[in-house]
Protein backbone atom coordinates (compact mmCIF):
# COMPACT_ATOMS: atom_id res chain seq x y z
CA UNK A 1 0.00 0.00 0.00
CA UNK A 2 1.33 3.47 -0.88
CA UNK A 3 1.70 6.16 1.76
CA UNK A 4 -1.76 7.68 2.32
CA UNK A 5 -2.45 11.38 1.70
CA UNK A 6 -2.48 13.69 4.72
CA UNK A 7 -4.94 16.61 4.50
CA UNK A 8 -5.54 19.54 6.86
CA UNK A 9 -8.85 19.74 8.75
CA UNK A 10 -8.74 23.37 9.78
CA UNK A 11 -5.63 24.85 11.41
CA UNK A 12 -5.17 22.30 14.22
CA UNK A 13 -6.08 18.88 12.81
CA UNK A 14 -4.85 16.57 10.06
CA UNK A 15 -6.59 13.64 8.36
CA UNK A 16 -4.69 10.56 7.21
CA UNK A 17 -6.65 9.25 4.21
CA UNK A 18 -6.39 5.52 4.87
CA UNK A 19 -9.44 4.42 2.91
CA UNK A 20 -12.42 2.36 4.06
CA UNK A 21 -10.28 -0.15 5.77
CA UNK A 22 -10.38 -1.97 9.09
CA UNK A 23 -6.67 -1.18 9.53
CA UNK A 24 -7.53 2.45 10.30
CA UNK A 25 -8.50 1.36 13.83
CA UNK A 26 -5.08 -0.18 14.42
CA UNK A 27 -3.46 2.97 13.06
CA UNK A 28 -5.68 5.05 15.38
CA UNK A 29 -4.52 3.13 18.45
CA UNK A 30 -0.85 3.52 17.43
CA UNK A 31 -1.37 7.27 17.00
CA UNK A 32 -3.24 7.46 20.31
CA UNK A 33 -0.56 5.63 22.27
CA UNK A 34 2.15 8.00 20.94
CA UNK A 35 0.78 10.69 23.29
CA UNK A 36 1.48 13.34 20.64
CA UNK A 37 -2.13 14.16 19.75
CA UNK A 38 -4.99 15.72 21.74
CA UNK A 39 -7.50 13.40 20.06
CA UNK A 40 -7.33 10.65 17.44
CA UNK A 41 -10.66 10.04 15.71
CA UNK A 42 -11.30 7.44 13.01
CA UNK A 43 -13.91 8.38 10.41
CA UNK A 44 -15.27 6.19 7.64
CA UNK A 45 -12.17 6.46 5.48
CA UNK A 46 -9.57 8.41 7.44
CA UNK A 47 -8.04 8.90 10.85
CA UNK A 48 -8.03 12.51 12.06
CA UNK A 49 -5.62 13.82 14.70
CA UNK A 50 -6.04 17.10 16.58
CA UNK A 51 -3.06 18.97 18.06
CA UNK A 52 -2.30 22.15 19.98
CA UNK A 53 -0.32 24.32 17.53
CA UNK A 54 1.41 26.02 20.49
CA UNK A 55 2.95 22.64 21.38
CA UNK A 56 3.40 21.34 17.84
CA UNK A 57 3.34 23.72 14.87
CA UNK A 58 1.14 22.70 11.91
CA UNK A 59 4.28 22.17 9.77
CA UNK A 60 5.88 19.93 12.41
CA UNK A 61 2.65 18.01 12.93
CA UNK A 62 2.44 17.38 9.19
CA UNK A 63 6.06 16.19 8.89
CA UNK A 64 5.71 14.00 11.99
CA UNK A 65 2.69 12.25 10.46
CA UNK A 66 4.36 11.89 7.05
CA UNK A 67 7.41 10.28 8.70
CA UNK A 68 5.23 7.96 10.77
CA UNK A 69 3.18 6.84 7.79
CA UNK A 70 6.36 6.03 5.82
CA UNK A 71 7.43 3.71 8.63
CA UNK A 72 4.02 2.28 9.44
CA UNK A 73 2.58 -0.55 7.38
CA UNK A 74 -1.18 -0.84 7.31
CA UNK A 75 -1.66 -4.49 8.13
CA UNK A 76 -4.56 -6.29 6.49
CA UNK A 77 -4.64 -9.03 9.08
CA UNK A 78 -5.74 -7.54 12.35
CA UNK A 79 -7.97 -9.78 14.41
CA UNK A 80 -10.37 -7.90 16.64
CA UNK A 81 -12.14 -9.50 19.59
CA UNK A 82 -15.73 -10.74 19.28
CA UNK A 83 -18.30 -9.16 21.58
CA UNK A 84 -21.59 -10.95 22.17
CA UNK A 85 -24.62 -8.72 22.70
CA UNK A 86 -28.21 -9.79 23.39
CA UNK A 87 -30.96 -8.01 21.45
CA UNK A 88 -34.64 -7.88 22.40
CA UNK A 89 -37.02 -7.76 19.44
CA UNK A 90 -40.44 -7.65 21.13
CA UNK A 91 -43.03 -5.06 20.15
CA UNK A 92 -41.91 -2.49 22.71
CA UNK A 93 -38.20 -2.90 21.98
CA UNK A 94 -38.55 -3.04 18.18
CA UNK A 95 -41.35 -0.63 17.20
CA UNK A 96 -40.33 -0.42 13.51
CA UNK A 97 -39.50 -4.10 12.96
CA UNK A 98 -42.89 -5.30 11.59
CA UNK A 99 -43.09 -2.39 9.11
CA UNK A 100 -39.47 -2.61 7.90
CA UNK A 101 -39.73 -6.40 7.55
CA UNK A 102 -42.96 -6.04 5.54
CA UNK A 103 -41.38 -3.37 3.29
CA UNK A 104 -38.67 -5.93 2.53
CA UNK A 105 -41.33 -8.57 1.79
CA UNK A 106 -40.27 -10.61 4.84
CA UNK A 107 -41.78 -11.78 8.09
CA UNK A 108 -40.11 -10.26 11.17
CA UNK A 109 -38.68 -13.71 11.88
CA UNK A 110 -36.96 -14.07 8.50
CA UNK A 111 -35.80 -10.44 8.66
CA UNK A 112 -34.16 -11.16 12.04
CA UNK A 113 -32.62 -14.37 10.64
CA UNK A 114 -30.84 -12.23 8.04
CA UNK A 115 -29.62 -9.81 10.71
CA UNK A 116 -28.49 -12.86 12.69
CA UNK A 117 -26.52 -14.22 9.71
CA UNK A 118 -24.79 -10.87 9.07
CA UNK A 119 -21.09 -10.52 9.95
CA UNK A 120 -21.30 -7.38 12.04
CA UNK A 121 -18.42 -5.23 13.18
CA UNK A 122 -18.05 -1.81 14.82
CA UNK A 123 -17.02 0.43 11.94
CA UNK A 124 -16.90 3.63 13.94
CA UNK A 125 -17.86 5.09 17.30
CA UNK A 126 -18.94 8.67 17.57
CA UNK A 127 -21.86 11.00 16.96
CA UNK A 128 -22.51 11.04 20.69
CA UNK A 129 -21.28 9.18 23.77
CA UNK A 130 -20.94 5.45 23.10
CA UNK A 131 -22.89 5.45 19.82
CA UNK A 132 -21.63 2.58 17.62
CA UNK A 133 -21.97 2.26 13.84
CA UNK A 134 -22.08 -1.44 12.89
CA UNK A 135 -21.43 -2.47 9.28
CA UNK A 136 -21.79 -5.81 7.57
CA UNK A 137 -25.60 -5.91 7.65
CA UNK A 138 -27.07 -8.09 4.85
CA UNK A 139 -27.09 -5.64 1.92
CA UNK A 140 -30.47 -6.89 0.64
CA UNK A 141 -32.26 -5.40 3.66
CA UNK A 142 -33.47 -1.87 2.88
CA UNK A 143 -34.34 0.64 5.60
CA UNK A 144 -34.52 4.40 4.97
CA UNK A 145 -34.10 7.00 7.74
CA UNK A 146 -37.31 8.12 9.49
CA UNK A 147 -38.73 11.27 7.90
CA UNK A 148 -39.50 12.57 11.40
CA UNK A 149 -36.92 11.52 14.01
CA UNK A 150 -38.19 10.18 17.33
CA UNK A 151 -37.75 12.59 20.23
CA UNK A 152 -36.59 9.86 22.55
CA UNK A 153 -35.67 6.19 22.34
CA UNK A 154 -34.45 4.12 25.31
CA UNK A 155 -30.75 3.45 25.87
CA UNK A 156 -29.62 0.38 23.93
CA UNK A 157 -32.01 0.95 21.02
CA UNK A 158 -30.84 -0.59 17.75
CA UNK A 159 -31.45 1.65 14.75
CA UNK A 160 -31.12 0.43 11.21
CA UNK A 161 -30.49 2.11 7.89
CA UNK A 162 -29.55 0.18 4.77
CA UNK A 163 -26.26 -1.60 5.37
CA UNK A 164 -25.77 -0.35 8.93
CA UNK A 165 -26.98 -0.72 12.47
CA UNK A 166 -26.63 2.13 14.94
CA UNK A 167 -26.51 1.32 18.63
CA UNK A 168 -27.89 4.19 20.70
CA UNK A 169 -25.90 3.91 23.94
CA UNK A 170 -27.90 6.73 25.56
CA UNK A 171 -31.59 7.50 25.70
CA UNK A 172 -32.24 10.37 23.33
CA UNK A 173 -33.49 11.42 19.91
CA UNK A 174 -33.10 8.92 17.06
CA UNK A 175 -33.54 9.28 13.32
CA UNK A 176 -33.07 5.62 12.39
CA UNK A 177 -35.93 3.08 12.48
CA UNK A 178 -35.68 0.97 15.66
CA UNK A 179 -35.56 -2.83 15.19
CA UNK A 180 -34.46 -3.97 18.64
CA UNK A 181 -32.85 -3.13 21.93
CA UNK A 182 -29.53 -4.34 23.36
CA UNK A 183 -29.80 -5.77 26.87
CA UNK A 184 -26.20 -5.05 27.94
CA UNK A 185 -25.45 -1.46 28.97
CA UNK A 186 -23.34 0.18 26.22
CA UNK A 187 -22.22 3.16 28.26
CA UNK A 188 -22.01 2.91 32.05
CA UNK A 189 -20.14 5.57 33.97
CA UNK A 190 -20.09 3.47 37.14
CA UNK A 191 -17.71 0.99 35.48
CA UNK A 192 -13.96 1.37 35.34
CA UNK A 193 -14.22 1.34 31.54
CA UNK A 194 -17.59 2.90 30.76
CA UNK A 195 -17.53 1.88 27.08
CA UNK A 196 -18.66 -1.65 26.12
CA UNK A 197 -17.64 -1.31 22.47
CA UNK A 198 -14.70 0.00 20.51
CA UNK A 199 -14.08 0.51 16.83
CA UNK A 200 -12.95 -2.64 15.02
CA UNK A 201 -14.73 -5.12 17.33
CA UNK A 202 -16.71 -7.92 15.71
CA UNK A 203 -20.24 -8.28 17.09
CA UNK A 204 -22.26 -11.43 17.65
CA UNK A 205 -25.91 -10.50 18.13
CA UNK A 206 -27.96 -13.04 20.06
CA UNK A 207 -31.57 -12.20 19.24
CA UNK A 208 -34.08 -13.00 21.98
CA UNK A 209 -37.35 -13.84 20.29
Amino acid sequence: MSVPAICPVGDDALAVKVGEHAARHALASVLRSSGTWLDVVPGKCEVTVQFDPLELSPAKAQSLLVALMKEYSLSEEIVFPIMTLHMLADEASAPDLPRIAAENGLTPGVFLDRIDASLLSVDMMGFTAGFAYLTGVDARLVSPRLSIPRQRVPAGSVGMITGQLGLYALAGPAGWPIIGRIVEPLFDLSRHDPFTLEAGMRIKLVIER
Partner: protein
Amino acid sequence: MVLAVVKPGALATLQGSVRHGLRHQGIPGSGPADALSRALANRLVGNVPDATAIEITFGGAVFEFREDAIFSFAGACGAAELSGALVAAHETQFARRGDSLVFVHPPAGARTYLAVAGGIRADNVFGSASTFLPAAFGGYSGRALRSGDILEAPGVAQEGVQLVTPEPFRPHMSRTHSLRAVPGPDYDELGPAAWSETFPATNRMDRTGLELSGPWPRPENGAQKLSAALFPGAVQLTPSGKAFVLLPDAQTTGGYPHVLQVIRADRHLLGQIAPGDRLRFLRRSVDEAYSDLLAKTRYFAEWLPAFRF
Protein backbone atom coordinates in the same frame (compact mmCIF):
# COMPACT_ATOMS: atom_id res chain seq x y z
CA MET B 1 -18.00 29.72 50.04
CA VAL B 2 -21.56 28.57 49.44
CA LEU B 3 -23.77 29.92 46.67
CA ALA B 4 -27.44 29.10 46.09
CA VAL B 5 -29.05 29.17 42.66
CA VAL B 6 -32.25 31.21 42.91
CA LYS B 7 -32.93 31.36 39.14
CA PRO B 8 -30.67 29.75 36.53
CA GLY B 9 -31.87 31.84 33.55
CA ALA B 10 -32.20 30.19 30.11
CA LEU B 11 -29.34 27.77 30.79
CA ALA B 12 -26.61 27.73 33.42
CA THR B 13 -24.01 24.97 33.62
CA LEU B 14 -20.72 24.38 35.41
CA GLN B 15 -17.79 24.32 32.98
CA GLY B 16 -14.22 23.34 33.80
CA SER B 17 -11.40 22.15 31.53
CA VAL B 18 -11.77 20.72 28.03
CA ARG B 19 -11.94 16.89 27.89
CA HIS B 20 -9.37 15.37 25.60
CA GLY B 21 -8.69 11.91 24.24
CA LEU B 22 -12.22 10.47 24.04
CA ARG B 23 -13.67 11.97 20.88
CA HIS B 24 -13.29 8.57 19.19
CA GLN B 25 -15.82 7.24 21.73
CA GLY B 26 -18.26 10.04 21.03
CA ILE B 27 -17.26 12.19 24.02
CA PRO B 28 -16.69 15.83 23.01
CA GLY B 29 -14.46 18.33 24.83
CA SER B 30 -17.24 20.41 26.44
CA GLY B 31 -15.87 23.30 28.56
CA PRO B 32 -16.88 26.95 28.23
CA ALA B 33 -18.20 28.23 24.90
CA ASP B 34 -16.15 31.42 25.46
CA ALA B 35 -12.96 30.19 27.13
CA LEU B 36 -11.35 33.65 27.09
CA SER B 37 -14.10 35.34 29.13
CA ARG B 38 -14.07 32.42 31.57
CA ALA B 39 -10.27 32.79 31.99
CA LEU B 40 -10.64 36.55 32.53
CA ALA B 41 -13.25 35.97 35.27
CA ASN B 42 -11.04 33.35 36.94
CA ARG B 43 -7.99 35.67 36.82
CA LEU B 44 -9.75 38.25 39.02
CA VAL B 45 -10.33 35.77 41.85
CA GLY B 46 -6.90 34.17 41.71
CA ASN B 47 -7.98 30.98 39.92
CA VAL B 48 -6.21 29.09 37.13
CA PRO B 49 -7.74 29.88 33.69
CA ASP B 50 -9.81 26.69 33.47
CA ALA B 51 -11.08 26.54 37.06
CA THR B 52 -14.74 25.49 37.15
CA ALA B 53 -17.10 28.46 36.79
CA ILE B 54 -20.78 29.01 36.02
CA GLU B 55 -21.68 29.60 32.37
CA ILE B 56 -24.83 31.77 32.29
CA THR B 57 -26.74 32.01 29.01
CA PHE B 58 -28.52 35.32 28.15
CA GLY B 59 -28.49 36.60 31.74
CA GLY B 60 -31.72 36.27 33.72
CA ALA B 61 -29.91 34.38 36.48
CA VAL B 62 -30.14 35.09 40.22
CA PHE B 63 -27.87 33.73 42.95
CA GLU B 64 -27.71 34.14 46.72
CA PHE B 65 -24.48 34.04 48.69
CA ARG B 66 -24.85 31.86 51.77
CA GLU B 67 -21.37 32.84 52.98
CA ASP B 68 -19.03 35.78 52.40
CA ALA B 69 -17.39 35.37 49.01
CA ILE B 70 -14.94 36.77 46.50
CA PHE B 71 -16.35 36.61 42.99
CA SER B 72 -16.04 38.10 39.54
CA PHE B 73 -17.76 37.85 36.22
CA ALA B 74 -16.90 38.48 32.58
CA GLY B 75 -18.53 37.95 29.21
CA ALA B 76 -21.85 39.27 27.92
CA CYS B 77 -23.12 41.00 31.08
CA GLY B 78 -21.17 44.19 31.75
CA ALA B 79 -22.87 44.71 35.11
CA ALA B 80 -25.03 42.93 37.70
CA GLU B 81 -26.86 43.91 40.87
CA LEU B 82 -25.43 42.84 44.21
CA SER B 83 -28.26 43.31 46.73
CA GLY B 84 -29.46 46.27 44.69
CA ALA B 85 -26.08 47.92 44.11
CA LEU B 86 -24.57 47.93 40.65
CA VAL B 87 -21.37 45.87 40.37
CA ALA B 88 -19.21 45.79 37.25
CA ALA B 89 -17.79 42.94 35.25
CA HIS B 90 -14.01 42.65 35.07
CA GLU B 91 -13.47 43.60 38.72
CA THR B 92 -12.85 41.49 41.81
CA GLN B 93 -16.05 41.77 43.90
CA PHE B 94 -16.78 40.96 47.53
CA ALA B 95 -20.14 39.60 48.68
CA ARG B 96 -21.54 39.28 52.19
CA ARG B 97 -23.58 36.38 53.43
CA GLY B 98 -27.18 36.92 52.34
CA ASP B 99 -26.32 39.09 49.32
CA SER B 100 -28.24 38.40 46.13
CA LEU B 101 -26.62 38.67 42.71
CA VAL B 102 -28.89 39.42 39.74
CA PHE B 103 -27.91 39.26 36.06
CA VAL B 104 -30.23 40.85 33.49
CA HIS B 105 -30.41 40.12 29.77
CA PRO B 106 -27.27 41.57 28.12
CA PRO B 107 -27.68 43.95 25.16
CA ALA B 108 -25.02 42.04 23.20
CA GLY B 109 -23.24 38.74 23.59
CA ALA B 110 -24.68 35.47 24.87
CA ARG B 111 -22.71 34.04 27.80
CA THR B 112 -21.45 35.36 31.13
CA TYR B 113 -19.00 33.54 33.38
CA LEU B 114 -19.34 33.78 37.15
CA ALA B 115 -16.18 32.72 38.98
CA VAL B 116 -15.58 32.37 42.70
CA ALA B 117 -12.27 32.07 44.50
CA GLY B 118 -11.09 28.45 44.55
CA GLY B 119 -13.36 27.33 41.69
CA ILE B 120 -16.73 25.61 42.15
CA ARG B 121 -16.82 21.97 43.25
CA ALA B 122 -18.15 19.71 40.51
CA ASP B 123 -18.28 16.08 39.38
CA ASN B 124 -15.02 15.14 37.71
CA VAL B 125 -15.67 12.72 34.84
CA PHE B 126 -12.99 11.60 32.36
CA GLY B 127 -10.57 14.11 33.83
CA SER B 128 -12.78 17.18 33.60
CA ALA B 129 -15.50 18.88 35.65
CA SER B 130 -17.26 20.25 32.56
CA THR B 131 -20.97 19.46 32.20
CA PHE B 132 -21.87 17.40 29.11
CA LEU B 133 -25.67 17.59 29.01
CA PRO B 134 -26.44 14.99 26.26
CA ALA B 135 -24.79 12.18 28.27
CA ALA B 136 -25.69 13.75 31.64
CA PHE B 137 -22.28 13.77 33.29
CA GLY B 138 -19.82 16.25 34.79
CA GLY B 139 -20.60 19.56 36.48
CA TYR B 140 -23.60 19.47 38.82
CA SER B 141 -24.85 15.86 38.62
CA GLY B 142 -24.58 16.01 34.83
CA ARG B 143 -27.36 18.54 34.48
CA ALA B 144 -28.10 22.24 34.06
CA LEU B 145 -28.38 24.24 37.28
CA ARG B 146 -31.86 24.60 38.79
CA SER B 147 -33.46 26.80 41.42
CA GLY B 148 -32.44 25.58 44.85
CA ASP B 149 -29.11 24.03 43.86
CA ILE B 150 -26.35 24.73 46.36
CA LEU B 151 -22.84 25.26 44.98
CA GLU B 152 -19.69 25.13 47.05
CA ALA B 153 -16.17 26.40 46.52
CA PRO B 154 -13.18 25.68 48.74
CA GLY B 155 -12.04 29.34 48.70
CA VAL B 156 -12.29 31.38 51.90
CA ALA B 157 -13.30 35.01 51.46
CA GLN B 158 -10.65 37.33 52.80
CA GLU B 159 -10.76 40.93 51.71
CA GLY B 160 -7.67 41.03 49.56
CA VAL B 161 -6.33 42.39 46.35
CA GLN B 162 -8.94 43.95 44.15
CA LEU B 163 -8.05 43.35 40.53
CA VAL B 164 -9.46 44.99 37.42
CA THR B 165 -9.06 43.58 33.90
CA PRO B 166 -6.92 46.17 32.06
CA GLU B 167 -8.90 47.79 29.25
CA PRO B 168 -6.84 46.30 26.36
CA PHE B 169 -7.75 42.77 27.49
CA ARG B 170 -11.51 43.26 27.74
CA PRO B 171 -13.36 41.61 24.84
CA HIS B 172 -15.84 43.96 23.18
CA MET B 173 -19.39 42.57 22.97
CA SER B 174 -21.06 43.25 19.64
CA ARG B 175 -23.97 42.11 17.47
CA THR B 176 -21.63 41.71 14.52
CA HIS B 177 -18.74 39.28 14.43
CA SER B 178 -15.71 38.81 12.20
CA LEU B 179 -14.32 35.30 12.47
CA ARG B 180 -11.10 34.16 10.88
CA ALA B 181 -11.48 30.78 9.17
CA VAL B 182 -9.56 28.40 6.95
CA PRO B 183 -11.17 26.39 4.13
CA GLY B 184 -12.53 23.06 5.40
CA PRO B 185 -12.18 19.66 3.68
CA ASP B 186 -15.36 20.31 1.62
CA TYR B 187 -14.65 23.98 0.84
CA ASP B 188 -15.19 23.32 -2.89
CA GLU B 189 -18.94 23.06 -2.23
CA LEU B 190 -18.98 26.62 -0.92
CA GLY B 191 -16.45 28.68 -2.83
CA PRO B 192 -15.42 32.32 -2.51
CA ALA B 193 -18.92 33.59 -1.59
CA ALA B 194 -18.04 32.66 1.99
CA TRP B 195 -15.67 35.62 2.24
CA SER B 196 -17.91 38.34 0.84
CA GLU B 197 -21.33 37.62 2.34
CA THR B 198 -22.81 38.35 5.77
CA PHE B 199 -24.59 35.51 7.56
CA PRO B 200 -27.25 36.05 10.26
CA ALA B 201 -27.46 33.70 13.26
CA THR B 202 -30.91 32.11 13.61
CA ASN B 203 -32.75 31.33 16.86
CA ARG B 204 -31.38 27.78 16.79
CA MET B 205 -28.46 27.70 19.17
CA ASP B 206 -27.32 25.70 22.16
CA ARG B 207 -24.03 24.33 23.47
CA THR B 208 -23.75 21.94 20.53
CA GLY B 209 -23.75 24.70 17.92
CA LEU B 210 -25.48 27.58 16.22
CA GLU B 211 -27.31 27.86 12.93
CA LEU B 212 -26.56 30.52 10.31
CA SER B 213 -28.94 31.53 7.54
CA GLY B 214 -27.94 33.54 4.47
CA PRO B 215 -26.81 32.66 0.96
CA TRP B 216 -25.36 29.20 1.64
CA PRO B 217 -25.40 26.75 -1.26
CA ARG B 218 -27.75 23.81 -0.77
CA PRO B 219 -25.64 20.64 -0.82
CA GLU B 220 -26.30 18.62 -3.98
CA ASN B 221 -29.14 16.10 -3.37
CA GLY B 222 -28.66 16.83 0.34
CA ALA B 223 -25.50 14.80 -0.17
CA GLN B 224 -24.10 13.16 2.93
CA LYS B 225 -20.35 12.70 2.97
CA LEU B 226 -18.78 9.70 4.63
CA SER B 227 -18.73 10.48 8.33
CA ALA B 228 -15.49 12.07 9.49
CA ALA B 229 -14.14 13.68 12.64
CA LEU B 230 -15.44 17.15 13.50
CA PHE B 231 -14.26 19.67 16.08
CA PRO B 232 -15.70 22.90 17.52
CA GLY B 233 -15.44 25.70 14.97
CA ALA B 234 -16.45 23.46 12.05
CA VAL B 235 -18.95 25.11 9.67
CA GLN B 236 -21.16 22.53 7.97
CA LEU B 237 -23.77 22.94 5.23
CA THR B 238 -27.11 21.44 6.28
CA PRO B 239 -29.70 19.81 3.98
CA SER B 240 -32.07 22.73 4.70
CA GLY B 241 -29.74 25.19 2.94
CA LYS B 242 -28.32 26.72 6.12
CA ALA B 243 -25.03 26.27 7.94
CA PHE B 244 -24.34 24.89 11.42
CA VAL B 245 -21.28 25.99 13.39
CA LEU B 246 -20.13 23.51 16.02
CA LEU B 247 -19.64 24.48 19.68
CA PRO B 248 -17.98 22.56 22.58
CA ASP B 249 -20.74 19.95 23.10
CA ALA B 250 -21.12 19.10 19.40
CA GLN B 251 -21.13 15.57 18.00
CA THR B 252 -17.61 14.26 17.36
CA THR B 253 -18.22 12.88 13.84
CA GLY B 254 -20.61 13.82 11.07
CA GLY B 255 -21.34 13.66 7.39
CA TYR B 256 -22.56 17.10 6.28
CA PRO B 257 -20.17 19.03 4.02
CA HIS B 258 -17.52 20.68 6.25
CA VAL B 259 -16.81 23.86 4.31
CA LEU B 260 -15.00 26.15 6.78
CA GLN B 261 -13.15 25.83 10.07
CA VAL B 262 -13.02 28.82 12.42
CA ILE B 263 -9.39 29.12 13.50
CA ARG B 264 -8.34 28.00 16.96
CA ALA B 265 -7.49 31.56 18.05
CA ASP B 266 -11.04 32.80 17.31
CA ARG B 267 -13.24 29.92 18.52
CA HIS B 268 -13.92 31.64 21.86
CA LEU B 269 -15.82 34.31 19.89
CA LEU B 270 -18.44 31.71 18.88
CA GLY B 271 -19.65 31.58 22.48
CA GLN B 272 -20.88 35.19 22.30
CA ILE B 273 -22.99 34.94 19.15
CA ALA B 274 -26.67 35.56 19.86
CA PRO B 275 -29.70 35.01 17.59
CA GLY B 276 -29.94 37.78 14.99
CA ASP B 277 -26.23 38.63 15.16
CA ARG B 278 -24.40 38.97 11.84
CA LEU B 279 -21.22 37.13 10.95
CA ARG B 280 -18.49 37.55 8.40
CA PHE B 281 -15.67 35.13 7.71
CA LEU B 282 -12.12 36.33 7.01
CA ARG B 283 -10.01 33.99 4.92
CA ARG B 284 -6.83 32.57 6.41
CA SER B 285 -4.37 29.90 5.34
CA VAL B 286 -3.21 27.31 7.88
CA ASP B 287 0.13 29.16 8.18
CA GLU B 288 -1.59 32.50 8.72
CA ALA B 289 -3.88 30.91 11.32
CA TYR B 290 -0.78 29.65 13.15
CA SER B 291 0.75 33.16 13.15
CA ASP B 292 -2.60 34.56 14.37
CA LEU B 293 -2.62 32.07 17.24
CA LEU B 294 0.96 32.91 18.25
CA ALA B 295 0.27 36.64 18.09
CA LYS B 296 -2.99 36.47 20.06
CA THR B 297 -1.46 34.20 22.69
CA ARG B 298 1.50 36.60 23.08
CA TYR B 299 -0.87 39.56 23.36
CA PHE B 300 -2.92 38.00 26.18
CA ALA B 301 0.10 36.46 27.92
CA GLU B 302 0.80 39.74 29.73
CA TRP B 303 -2.49 39.39 31.68
CA LEU B 304 -3.28 35.67 31.27
CA PRO B 305 0.15 33.97 31.14
CA ALA B 306 -1.24 30.43 31.51
CA PHE B 307 -4.20 30.78 29.15
CA ARG B 308 -4.30 28.74 25.93
CA PHE B 309 -6.78 29.36 23.12
